[in-house]
């Protein structure tokens, strides 16, 4: 690109600068002055920084982002996340408001600006990293936008030049009722709020939740929803920029100063559920076979017990139920042949022919036995984590997958718990409270602790299990593994030891 511009210089002026001088002259970039606390990160940084700064700033930002991601995995509400993040932000990535008169104002903003672009380089390489980076950066932007000073925020938004068409008084009065209904009864008097009319595609988030009035493809966005529009704009721009960055990345290949730092950075940004791997869960000595699943199911978490019960009741499961259950079974160490035997015998109402045609393929696909190159190489999908089960594909009519703590009504949940033997009123009450607070992990762990009360006490007292082995469960397979090991503590010392060694590793 630079070369192109060079060649476009007016031919009459071409000779003024000696090309040797031109080549080594420092490019005269305008020094960026940060007028606003918030930044859309449109212009890349141009000034020099030291390598130490480069690394330090990036690590600081990474800490913030990793923490943010952890919050979303723990299902924290936006308010909780903001509260949790505040000290971390103040420590690693402070940003003062323009009115604070802080001496380090420009420095803080520069660090924010530069660290963003460094991480952009580090996380542009793969689709997965890009998506995660864009997600957490959006979260960060949203938090900052919300706490920003009202006037400064307005000034910032105005600089963005978003073309929003204001809704006139007449139109506003005409649709007063619809507008108020879309706002959940807000505002009391329609005159209290100003509205913008934009193409609905620019506010998909609001449309999805029916929080705007739609007419002929236009969304009528109330002024207070500005946040989600600005955020959508931010995400959109960043996704595009990340895409461009990834294409430019190969040019960095030759560089031996930055590349190692960048690789290192991106490797440290791992998801919690990526920690789970099938090899670490193998349970030596355990009889994991199709005919033994019924017995093993006592150690399954509630989601899987529910699937198992539905399967036994109906002799059928719908697609996502099968997927969730198959992957879980794969995760506990059931091999493909046994898994096929299991499904074949479970779908007792179907003929061999129907089973082979309709279901066999999907089971094999889940094991990576068939399918595209990447599927086979990766041995199929990995077993679903709680995070995935909680957030993706909520069950529809007639479907049994998902997380009972989240997707069941409280009555049905209590019922199911009682059926699997959780009868203690206090535990049930606790689960109900957890559910109301949307702490589904807590509910599940509460039930786990109740079901393994004695065993947990024993390993605690004896000190055979460290704290790390008793931390919150965030994966159904982890639930099974721990449950199985605890249940078989006395019976099979070999298993216990084997499991212990594995866990330390």
């Amino acid at each position, binding site marked *: 690109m630079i070369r192109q511009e060079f060649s476009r210089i007016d031919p009459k002026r071409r000779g003024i600068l000696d090309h040797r001088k031109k080549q080594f002259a420092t490019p005269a970039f305008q020094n960026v002055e940060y007028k606003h606390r918030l930044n859309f990160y449109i212009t890349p940084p141009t000034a020099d920084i030291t390598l130490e700064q480069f690394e330090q700033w990036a690590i600081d930002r990474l800490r913030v982002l990793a923490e943010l991601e952890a919050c979303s995995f723990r299902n924290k509400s936006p308010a909780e996340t903001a509260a949790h993040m505040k000290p971390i932000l103040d420590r690693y990535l402070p940003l003062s408001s323009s009115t604070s008169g802080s001496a380090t104002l420009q420095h803080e903003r520069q660090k924010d600006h530069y660290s963003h672009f460094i991480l952009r380089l580090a996380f542009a390489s793969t689709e997965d990293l890009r998506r995660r980076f864009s997600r957490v950066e959006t979260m960060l932007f949203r938090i900052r936008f919300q706490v920003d000073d009202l006037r400064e925020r307005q000034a910032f938004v105005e600089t963005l030049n978003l073309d929003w068409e204001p809704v006139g008084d007449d139109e506003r009065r005409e649709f007063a009722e619809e507008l108020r209904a879309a706002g959940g009864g807000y505002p009391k008097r329609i005159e209290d709020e100003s509205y913008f009319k934009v193409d609905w595609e620019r506010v998909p988030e609001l449309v*999805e939740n*029916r929080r705007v009035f*739609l007419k002929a493809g236009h969304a009528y966005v109330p002024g207070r929803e500005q946040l989600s529009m600005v955020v959508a704009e931010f995400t959109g721009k960043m996704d595009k920029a990340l895409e461009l960055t990834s294409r430019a990345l190969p040019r960095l290949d030759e560089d031996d100063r930055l590349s190692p730092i960048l690789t290192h950075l991106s490797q440290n940004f791992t998801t919690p559920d990526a920690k789970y791997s099938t090899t670490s869960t193998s349970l030596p000595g355990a009889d994991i076979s199709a005919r033994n699943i019924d017995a093993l199911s006592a150690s399954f978490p509630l989601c899987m017990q529910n699937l198992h019960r539905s399967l036994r009741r109906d002799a059928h499961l719908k697609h996502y139920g099968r997927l969730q259950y198959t992957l879980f079974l794969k995760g506990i160490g059931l091999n493909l042949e046994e898994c096929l035997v299991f499904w074949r015998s479970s779908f007792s109402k179907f003929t061999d022919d129907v089973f082979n045609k309709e279901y066999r393929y999907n089971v094999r696909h889940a094991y990576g036995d068939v399918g595209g190159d990447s599927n086979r190489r990766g041995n199929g999908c990995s077993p679903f984590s709680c995070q995935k089960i909680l957030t993706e594909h909520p*069950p529809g009519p*007639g479907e049994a997958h998902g997380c009972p703590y989240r*997707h069941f009504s409280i009555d049905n949940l209590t019922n199911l718990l009682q059926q699997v033997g959780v009868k203690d009123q206090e535990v049930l009450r606790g689960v109900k409270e957890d559910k109301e607070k949307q702490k589904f992990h807590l509910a599940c762990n509460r039930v786990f602790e109740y079901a393994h009360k004695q065993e947990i006490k024993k390993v605690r007292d004896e000190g055979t299990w460290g704290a790390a082995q008793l931390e919150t469960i965030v994966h159904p397979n982890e639930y099974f593994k721990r449950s199985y090991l605890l249940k078989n503590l006395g019976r099979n010392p070999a298993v216990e030891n084997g499991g212990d060694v594995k866990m330390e590793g």
Partner: protein
Amino acid sequence: MPHSAPEISLTDGLDIVIDHDIDCDGAPDAVGALSEPTHENTLDHDMITEDTEDTQEKQVEGAVKVEAKPEVKLEDLFADVESDEEFPSSNHQNIKISSSPEAPSSPAQAGGDARASDNDVMRSFYQRLFPWRYLFQWLNHSPTPSTDFGHREFAFTLQNDAYLRYQSFPTAETLRKDVLRLMPSRFEIGPVYTTNPRDRKTLRKSSAFKPLAKELCFDIDLTDYDDIRTCCDKANICIKCWQFITMAIKVIDIALRDDFGFKHIVWIYSGRRGAHAWVCDKKARQMDDQKRRAIAGYLEVIKGGAQGGKKVNVKRPLHSHVARSLDILKTHFQSDILQDQDPWETDEKFDRLLELLPDRSLNDALRKKWSSAPGRASTSKWADIDVLAKSGASKNLDSKALLEAKQDILLEYTYPRLDIEVSKHLNHLLKSPFVVHPRTGRVCVPINPMKLGEFDPLDVPTVTDLLQEIDEWTAPEDDNGEKTVQDWEKTRLKPYVEYFKSFVQALMKDEKPVKVKRERDENVAGAMEF
């Protein structure tokens, strides 16, 4: 729906069918494809029947063959090649043939108990009835072939249930030929890709092969209503439960038009127990997954699985979309649900209703009343709620909460239940319009939303009906043979094809590139004046 199943290679049984193409030594391919089915079939009958059909049927076919042979004249074979019609008509200049007793009857009759999946029936259908031209124009958005069609994925389900993905065709004629070669029991339509789907493996980077555009689709299936429909279950339907689909179409159609501003929406009967919507506006086709998800979320009101308890949780005051839907659904609720479905007839069933009502003492009063009158109709039970509420069965009754609960119940029993995954993803495949449902033999015809009330799924013609209708058709008296009558015009498929045609034409009209006014010329003219 095998949307996620990757390719499966052709299996043995198929090779015979493929071979026939090569074995048709003398006759050029085009002739084979365009000529009368019975004539052309003579060649490959032996091959297919030898392998799959029982001998008795073979004999019947053999008899037809003998009768049919004398009819093959060279000019007959080539008569159709000259006209560029995609819809071969049984030669109108020789109408006698179709009425004379020794006429080559369509395989529907020849086979006697012919099933829809029979090769000959399907071949005749694809050759004589399937509206290839309009399908092509629909996906291509202009009469001249473009990448909109050429890079579009088709997926075939073959008769041995093998599933062939990533097929693509430059023109309608090549698609038609391949369909006739492979005789899929049905085929599905996927997205338009960045490059030709057939070339995807030759690309340097696999990431360069991406879906670009596809119609926004909706899938409504009556099996999703199994917990509230009482008349039928599983794959069975009747006109009573079809009303669920009718309601769904009304609600979704108006939302897509009024709220999102889409214009080109076509509803297709899925051949058995549901309907598909294809939103074909350019803007809809180009939406990414996030936007599709947004629309799906906007339209989704019924949430939660079998154990989810209350399925409708809408905010108050009601969003204009929900309020409008409620208005539309009210009358249906009275007639189609309370009367026809009678969902709370028995004791176990009305418990479900009571679960959804908020006031405990009112519930007790209702339970008492209903238990003493077993079999009381749902209409009366529904009315009882208000009667007892007014009579003061509960002292501290929250009438607002009751009203809202009643609205929620109404929605739960009437609001469309969408198979939302179909709508959310750009690269989801959906069965093509006008293919034949392999089980029922019914053609997936478009449903005209203007005449929604008249649509009866059990009245939709099956492929064997249609073939028979061609044979039974006689030219009107005043016909002087000037105008070619196409085969589909002789059947009950006619109104459906005509509706689809008008839909496609309206779509093409909107897609036509706007002619740029020659401003320069005007300017020049203006300049000349000075």
